């Protein structure tokens, strides 16, 4: 098997890795399971595609997608902090609303970008003689965003955001508006998710209203796989893990498909993967406790029976 065959999976892994970095920010840093992602990912695709079709420069369209994603995150943040709607529900509400918004933006369910000028056509025009150009582009972009995120999380603002996810009482008692931090975190996260969506749409050559379904689970799977591979002792390692997790997830899918898995079964596989990873610690403790109790019972057969016999 040549490298060329898996390079597509690597590219996908890296571009979805940008989305995974966004999910890392909410899920791990803010401790907030944000389902907005399933709406903000196609939102990014929709905004970018609609703008490109109407003649906007691809870079501008991509940046507009990022801003739109941030706006979507702000909506979830406001629902959660100001209107006190539970976090999960706030995300679901925004996601549901975004489905209509995305269709409005696109005007139909699918926008093909085949004969349009996109970031990738421009890229190939400029650097025509580089092999694996897309892969190189995604690698550099994903790493750049990862490093920027690392730097952000070690600023005063970023540390306050991490503390908000860790212990809101504490950081509030140090003068930080934790509500503002949650809103800012959701903005940033969904901005990255929408950016990822905009890149995916241009990369695959179309935006589709249904392209967001299951995005959050893929993001969670990436973050969780990443944690399994690289222990997240530092921010640097944690974000690297999220990126690597996204790539490994794509490679796993690639091999699963090659081994004859039906593409329609992918989502259940992903769901099972996430369930397995999330429940592993619990199952491990239950199992260890069972083993310990069985050993105790054997020991008691000797230890306690003897005492009972003496008294009788």
């Amino acid at each position: 098997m040549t490298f060329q065959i898996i390079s597509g999976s690597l590219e996908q892994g890296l571009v979805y890795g940008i989305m995974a970095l966004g999910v890392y920010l909410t899920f791990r840093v803010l401790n907030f399971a944000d389902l907005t992602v399933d709406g903000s990912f196609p939102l990014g695709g929709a905004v970018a595609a609609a703008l490109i079709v109407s003649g906007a420069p691809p870079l501008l369209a991509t940046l507009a997608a990022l801003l739109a994603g941030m706006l979507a995150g702000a909506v979830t943040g406001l629902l959660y902090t100001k209107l006190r709607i539970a976090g999960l529900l706030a995300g679901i509400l925004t996601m549901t609303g975004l489905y209509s918004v995305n269709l409005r933006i696109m005007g139909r369910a699918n926008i093909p970008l085949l004969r349009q000028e996109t970031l990738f056509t421009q890229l190939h025009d400029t650097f025509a003689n580089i092999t694996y150009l897309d892969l190189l582009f995604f690698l550099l972009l994903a790493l750049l965003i990862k490093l920027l995120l690392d730097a952000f999380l070690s600023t005063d603002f970023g540390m306050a955001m991490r503390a908000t996810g860790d212990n809101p009482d504490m950081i509030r008692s140090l003068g930080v508006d934790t509500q503002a931090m949650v809103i800012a975190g959701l903005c940033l996260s969904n901005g990255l998710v929408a950016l990822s969506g905009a890149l995916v749409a241009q990369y695959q050559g179309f935006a589709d209203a249904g392209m967001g379904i299951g995005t959050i689970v893929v993001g969670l799977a990436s973050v969780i796989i990443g944690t399994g591979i690289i222990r997240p002792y530092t921010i640097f390692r944690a974000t690297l893990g999220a990126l690597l997790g996204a790539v490994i997830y794509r490679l796993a899918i690639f091999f699963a498909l090659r081994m004859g898995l039906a593409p329609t079964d992918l989502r259940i596989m992903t769901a099972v993967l996430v369930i397995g990873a999330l429940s592993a610690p619990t199952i491990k403790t239950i199992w260890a406790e069972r083993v310990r109790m069985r050993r105790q019972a054997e020991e008691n057969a000797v230890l306690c029976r003897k005492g009972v016999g003496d008294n009788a």
Partner: protein
Amino acid sequence: MLEIRHLCKAFPAGGLTPKIALQDVNLTVPTGSFVTIIGSNGAGKSTLLNAVAGVFPVDRGCVMLNGKDITFLPEHRRAAFIGRVFQNPLQGTAASMTVEENLVMAWRRGERRGLRRGITAGLRRQIRDRLSQLGLGLEDRLHTAVGFLSGGQRQALTLLMATMTRPDLLLLDEHVAALDPNTAQQILYLTEKMVAEEGLTTLMVTHNMEHALRMGDTTIMMHEGEIVLNVKGTKRAAMTVHDLLNQFKRIRGEQLLDDRMLLAD
């Protein structure tokens, strides 16, 4: 100076009548004064501290700090000039972040948090100096996540974080109640040292009557949302735990008597 005027607060209870937690509380704490607060469970001690910190809005009255009315200021804005140590040692620090990061966040108390690098070499030096004053060896564990420290170490850290920027007011809410006696002594010693060094205006809630009399310069007793005793100076100096207990029984007894008379009416 902290001035509390006619402060009232009731919490909705299960029934029709809300639970009255603070009832027309008046208290003046001069700058640099250290007030200890005692009272039985549900007397309103923690509610008073939380009301001053701005955890919830109060129903009536006002809180003034150094002449400024802070009654309607949200909690995070007041935090710029109020340091707090909670009863739960886990509540005052971020467990997943390092000792250094926690201290830097406290260093920036009340400041706008921008996009400059949080930890600089200069700041690290200052933090190491401050930590070494605790005498716990934490200055060598700057990069340890706080979650790996003991409750006592975390409480010492919280105390340092609450005092290092010299806040106008320090609130201590039974901050040694969850610690073992030895560690509690150590934290109390550090508390007295830091308060004295910085001349901090302090309110300390405690269940320990001996601590209440021995520490600080003023002792107040709360009962059913009211301040029922306020002693300082020579009168306080002559007081024993026994006297305090008797006072407490007498006040409670009077109240019982009042209730009985009301019912008989």
